[in-house]
């Protein structure tokens, strides 16, 4: 006997606790089984690319802060590198060191949010607050450096907006010392919790070839077992001077490329970031951070695509210049935008609860998806 059944269309979002912003998911359900997911985006569209065409190269920097607002430093860095490449500016050593430290601190800060909210998605509240407690310390360091806690506008073309304060180095060292126990704590409380593993292992398995074809980058790609990190594979800034490992998903508790692997890669990456900071913090050379900042930026005619390993993946800026004061065209390649496009493929055949787990493991930020 075949009963006529109808799929239920559940409209998840744009206001929903676990869509990580104003994302709307049109979910077709058969019972609680996901048949199809259609992400609908654009609720946070703020015309970033259109704005860029009307702003000078310098004025764009604060707008890049607002792309991935959890990793503003890294956004600044990526954009600024593009302009510098276009103009052929070589920045001083001191600036490079500070930029790397900032970017790695930002990576930790972003991962704490990703991991904490992932715990929230699964229903564990406490690790979230543990991780946020330590994120506050990073924000305090940033605040001491440039006065802002979220949107820094710190890395400028050719240099930095401020030099680091005297207490910067001790603050970072203190943070490193205090952060390692937190990682242990969260591992005990969440990573190897039986329920957490049951919820995330073997859920949303992303095979390596699908991941590459979809252009997935960052921890989500490494979760599928591909050793690919722009800091190593396409080194920029001074990353080639530091020793660190690229953690990849190994299927420790399930299949390679499942949600737990993506989670675990982020967990391990924080440790690697700490290593980089440790190597950099004692070797910051003296110098002037404003040395190379040009008075007026007039990029030569041409195009450049520059990318950097953001906490969420490869953030790229494709800049077309026609030799005037404003860029002719700025196209952003936001990592979350590309990573989110795989969601529909990834979550077919799982339960609604798994959909949340998969979405959380991709770690998206709507600020850069909608731009």
């Amino acid at each position: 006997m075949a009963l006529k059944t109808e799929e239920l269309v559940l409209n998840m979002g744009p206001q929903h606790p676990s869509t990580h912003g104003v994302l709307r998911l049109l979910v077709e359900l058969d019972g609680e089984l996901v048949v199809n997911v259609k992400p609908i985006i654009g609720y946070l569209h703020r015309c970033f690319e259109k704005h860029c065409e009307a702003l000078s190269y310098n004025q764009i920097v604060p707008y890049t802060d607002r792309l991935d607002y959890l990793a503003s430093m890294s956004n600044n860095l990526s954009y600024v590198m593009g302009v510098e490449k276009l103009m052929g500016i070589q920045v001083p050593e001191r600036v490079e060191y500070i930029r790397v430290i900032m970017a790695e601190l930002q990576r930790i800060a972003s991962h704490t949010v990703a991991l904490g909210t992932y715990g929230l998605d699964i229903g564990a509240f406490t690790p979230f607050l543990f991780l946020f407690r330590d994120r506050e310390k990073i924000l305090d360091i940033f605040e001491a450096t440039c006065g802002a806690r979220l949107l820094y506008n710190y890395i400028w073309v050719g240099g930095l907006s401020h030099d680091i304060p005297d207490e910067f180095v001790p603050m970072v060292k203190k943070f490193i010392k205090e952060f390692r126990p937190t990682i242990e704590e969260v591992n005990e409380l969440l990573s190897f919790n039986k329920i957490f593993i049951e919820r995330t292992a073997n859920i949303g398995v992303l095979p390596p070839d699908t991941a590459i074809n979809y252009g997935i980058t960052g921890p989500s790609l490494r979760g599928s077992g591909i050793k690919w990190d722009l800091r190593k594979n396409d080194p920029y800034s001074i990353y080639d001077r530091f020793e660190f490992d690229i953690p990849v998903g190994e299927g420790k508790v399930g299949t390679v490329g499942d949600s737990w692997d993506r989670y675990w890669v982020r967990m391990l990456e924080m440790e690697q970031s700490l290593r980089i900071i440790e190597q950099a913090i004692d070797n910051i050379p003296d110098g002037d951070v404003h040395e190379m900042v040009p008075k007026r930026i007039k990029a030569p005619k041409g195009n450049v695509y520059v990318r950097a390993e953001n906490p969420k993946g490869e953030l790229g800026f494709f800049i077309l210049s026609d030799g005037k004061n404003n860029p002719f065209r700025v196209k952003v390649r936001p990592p979350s935008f590309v990573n989110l496009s795989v969601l529909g493929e990834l979550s077919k055949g799982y339960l609604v609860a798994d959909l949340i787990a998969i979405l959380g493991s991709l770690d998206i930020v709507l600020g850069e998806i909608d731009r």
Partner: protein
Amino acid sequence: MYDLLTNLLGNQIVAYVIAASLPLIFVLTFVLFAVLAERKVSAHMQDRLGPMRVGWHGIIQTLADMLKLLQKEDIVPEGADKTLFNLAPLLTFLGTYAAFAAIPFAGIYVGSSTAIGIYYVTAVSGLVVAGLLLAGWASDNKYSLYGAMRTAAQIVSYEIPTAIAILTMVMVSGTLSLMKISDMQTAHFWNWWILGGPETGIVKFLLIPFMIITFLIYYISSLAEVNRTPFDLPEAESELVSGYHTEYSGMKFAFFFLAEYANMFAVSAIAVTLFLGGFHSPIGYLGHSLGIDWLVPVEQFFWFTFKGTALVFVQMWLRWTLPRVRVDQLMVICWKYLIPYAVVNLIIVGIITLL
């Protein structure tokens, strides 16, 4: 209790009314306390302070919240069935509150010392399901309906291991009366049923491990029955927003809240009565040794609330530690683990009692 009140007041009806409303006073004070406790417990587990502004260490925060909820606009969704929408919170609270009628708080403080107390409590808690299902349906919201469906499926399923665990206790104690079960465990804590009860000799020692298993089965399934983490799927915030009470606001929401916390205490109270000596003191009564008779019920009441609150605290502790299981895993835990274990446990305990 009626006899006492009837003698005291000389009027049967007044006595009934007072007897019926005494647990309400308890429930209300308990909820006021428990909501604050939950926030404080969670806060201290997470390196925070929790509410600190209203009163000393935020002690009257819940009262302030209550006042806020009272003032809120009463919103009924446009597509909702208004009558049923309004009925649902009442029905939910009714089911919870009815259970309090048979819970013995102290030797003299029990709504009804009926001979089938535990059976009655199990039966009326079924009303809660009807209330939640109604809330989900009447809200005219897909999240609410999903939440309600999950609640109903979850509670109905977990009633089975709960019932089997209770059945085990009924079998060893030989009575359905909560009062009698309490009285069996009088005097000292080694008379608690979790430690073999008033049995003696080899039977007692054989019983202890299986009694502990029974207790664990009961406690785990009671967690699911009151929708607490790790079984809080019906209101799973990250998936279903808030489940069945998504659409409720103001006082009606407060009723669900009240019912939830009252329910937490109700299941803990049953656990205390069945396994942990009920209202009896684990170390003997001060009132007896001093010769002050009126002190004994006070002590009994203290011990009962103390034990019950301790179990509620464990529920909070679990909530802020564990993630949430998935809906199919929830069913697996119930049907593949708890029920078979409970049945086997029941048979073994049966054999032991025959010895």
